């Protein structure tokens, strides 16, 4: 039985490793094609990762990515494609910023309260797609993409000066949040500050694992993802499951903007980062929806993000920092291909091995009859 455990680890690692190697090789081809060194950008980026301040940046960014990717992964585990994480976290961050600027509770209450606002906003926005799917059969992919666009417009409207916005120089903000809602960070001296919310991200990962693998609800969710028909026959209410999964996914997505909002920005403005939700999809894919895998993937992508800007200023030859973007794109493609290939290969391999082991066992006691028909 040990063999199969080892086998599973091998299979789990083979996919990402093949994908990453392929992505690096392909990126090198791009570099060669543009007449540049195919190796130096990597060494430059690794050098960057040695600096403490870059490390802090990477960890902070990874925490944000981790939450966004968890949100996507919840949907993935039951074959729901929540592309709307982007709109959900932005809307949630904005609402939280507005509430945080107007409500002032003691810190011990203020922070949980703000988190609740974020979760509910994200869940509400994702829930729209969930309700549409359950009642009208609208594909959640289409609905969430549309909701992203609507969220952008809605945020634009709500941050107008006439509504909740406060102009600040050239920027349009929602006003500075009350200080009791600032999430204390870990001071790293000159290197900067690690968001305290990163701890929440880690806890969310633990909770994710616990719920999926150790609860009845998690089993139903995974069963639905593995085989909708079998789950239905086993008594899972598919509609309720779709709605619940969308709500959870949206709720987690709502948290994704908070590390930045509560730890650093303290207001929602035009310069609030966008696109985290889409990066989250990449990371969830790369991390195979596994909480540990997602953590590694989040760190990797954060590293690419934060180590690549230095390429622009490299001497004597400058590289385009977009190399990192190219690489991220290639990772996605490579991941999809290599995971499917590894999955099929792994299944075949296990079938063969089980067949072989049983044949060996059958040879020992000759009583076994041949099994006919499929």
């Amino acid at each position, binding site marked *: 039985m040990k063999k199969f455990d080892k086998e*599973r680890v091998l299979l789990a690692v083979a996919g990402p490793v093949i994908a990453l190697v392929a992505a690096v090789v392909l990126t090198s081809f791009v570099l060669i094609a543009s007449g540049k060194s195919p190796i130096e950008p990597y060494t430059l980026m690794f050098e960057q990762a040695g600096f403490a301040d870059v490390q802090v940046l990477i960890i902070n960014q990874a925490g944000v990515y981790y939450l966004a990717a968890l949100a996507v992964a919840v949907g993935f585990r039951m074959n729901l494609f929540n592309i709307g994480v982007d709109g959900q976290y932005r809307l949630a961050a904005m609402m939280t910023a507005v509430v945080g600027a107007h409500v002032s509770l003691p810190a011990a209450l203020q922070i949980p309260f703000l988190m609740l606002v974020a979760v509910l906003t994200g869940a509400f926005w994702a829930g729209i797609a969930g309700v549409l799917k*359950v009642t009208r059969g609208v594909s959640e992919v289409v609905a969430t993409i549309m909701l992203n666009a609507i969220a952008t417009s809605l945020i634009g409207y709500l941050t107008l000066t006439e509504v909740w916005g406060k102009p600040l120089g050239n920027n349009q903000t929602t006003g500075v949040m009350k200080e009791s809602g600032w999430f204390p960070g870990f001071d790293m001296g000159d290197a900067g500050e690690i968001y305290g919310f990163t701890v929440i991200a880690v806890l969310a990962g633990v909770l994710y694992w616990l719920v999926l693998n150790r609860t009845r609800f998690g089993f139903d969710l995974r*069963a639905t993802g593995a085989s909708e028909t*079998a789950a239905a026959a*086993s008594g899972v*209410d598919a509609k309720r499951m779709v709605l619940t999964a969308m709500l959870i996914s949206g709720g987690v997505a709502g948290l994704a903007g908070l590390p930045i909002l509560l730890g650093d920005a303290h207001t929602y403005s035009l310069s609030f980062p966008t696109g985290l939700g889409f990066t989250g999809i990449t990371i969830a894919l790369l991390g195979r929806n596994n909480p540990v895998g997602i953590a590694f993937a989040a760190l990797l992508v954060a590293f690419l993000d934060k180590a690549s800007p230095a390429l622009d200023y490299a001497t004597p030859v400058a590289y385009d920092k977009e190399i990192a973007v190219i690489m991220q794109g290639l990772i996605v493609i490579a991941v999809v291909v290599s995971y499917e290939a590894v999955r099929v290969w792994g299944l075949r391999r296990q079938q063969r091995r089980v*067949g072989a082991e049983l044949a060996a066992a059958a040879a020992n006691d000759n009583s076994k009859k*041949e099994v006919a028909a499929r």
Partner: protein
Amino acid sequence: MSVELAGITKRFPGVVANHDIHLSVRKGTVHALVGENGAGKSTLMKILYGMQKPDEGTIAVDGEQVAFASPADAITRGIGMVHQHFMLADYLTVLENVVLGSEKLHGIGAAARRRIVEISERYGLGVRPDALVEDLGVADRQRVEILKVLYRGARILILDEPTAVLVPQEVDALFDNLRELKAEGLSVIFISHKLGEVLSVADEITVIRRGTTVGTAVPAETTSRQLAEMMVGSELPTPETAESTVTDKPVIQVEGLTVYAGGGASLGESGSVGEAPAAGSLAGAASAGDAKRVLDDVTFTIHAGEVMGIAGVEGNGQTELVDALIGLKNADSGTVRFLGEEITSWPTRRRREQGVGYIPEDRHRHGLLLEAPLWENRILGHVTEKPNSKGFWLDPKGAQADTRRIVEEYDVRTPGIDVTAASLSGGNQQKLIVGREMSHKPRFLIAAHPTRGVDVGAQAAIWDQIREARREGLAVLLISADLDELIGLSDTLRVIYDGRLVADADPAAITPEELGSAMTGAASGHLEHVERAERAEEAPEDEAR
């Protein structure tokens, strides 16, 4: 001989799908290949079409031995296949669909059109090259598929269950086409399990059962009764139920159960799950008003200790009956009572928790998570029950321990409980499912084809399990294509046809042949055979006993 298969054997891990198969198709004939689902027909055809490689045996085309690495090789040799599910692009014209992938033959313009019209006229296919496939009906699409194959130069056509999607008039038209084809010297291999059709169109019939060819027949010298006998077989160990254990305590009472065909929902897709009043699927509610009744006023009672067998040709409402009983499909009218309590509106989970066991017809779709380990499959369907969970939490240790017990007690051949369900053979998967369902001491068991694709030893073991549980007061609804199994295990027998229970029989007094002819007879409207076989007339409604 245009095709000759000799000694074909194909093994999948732990399973022999084909074993020593012999098939000879003469030039200019229609050769039918008949057998139950899962008998190995499709594997054999995949081998002939180059999609699978045989482990043993030889294939000869026109007397020349060949080995196919891919369907492309088979096509070069003049073998073409018309799949049951059409492979046409809806938004392209017939011409475009036909040339797609074979642009090299006659180009994509006038020459191709000439060729298509020529083939169409020669074989009387009546295909219009410029019609959009989207606008064509099922029968026309099928003719396009046949034309596609002929365009590629096929001399040997494989038709996989071609009549499954056609109405009777279309079937007749198809058979006329087939006669044209054979008059031109082409050979047709016709896969079916509809015996009446096979007898009317085939020149020769090969019967396949449990992965091997059991005989060849000529329609003129055989009857559908004899064919059914060959298909089902009677040399298997007979599942005799020793003494009657039927009590007078009703366990399941079904009254006037009616279900309408509801678009996608009728396929048993996940979308159809839901609370009782929500009749619609995820894809939208289907209007029940003008829909076909897939179950029509079905009434029966099964008592504690009673096994009720349902005989019938597949597709006559068995699937819908099972779905309605387990709660995957909601009754449009009628009631289901379980131990006196009305459960018509109960969701699936509640039914299962209360003691309805379910051995599904299609274990891959409804019974297993193929890529999950065995112990997770042991949880499936019983996640709220011990030993799988403690309250809100899952209990992996308990489930694993109990999986080991099932593997042991039910003789599931596996190296461990951490391997995926997909790596087990069909028979062992089935034993796991039976073990799982029996472990929860059901009061009512729905057993749909419980021993399909299972080897003889496992079959006997499963029968023993059912018999033992029956002695302890289990009520069983048994649906099977294996008539020996039905007769041997059942205390009462019903025949289902077109969604209605049209006949009943006493298993002690009926033979497989008589029952088989009742099913085919019912299918073609000859119910008088049944009367000799001791049953009620068609007209009076099936009373609850």
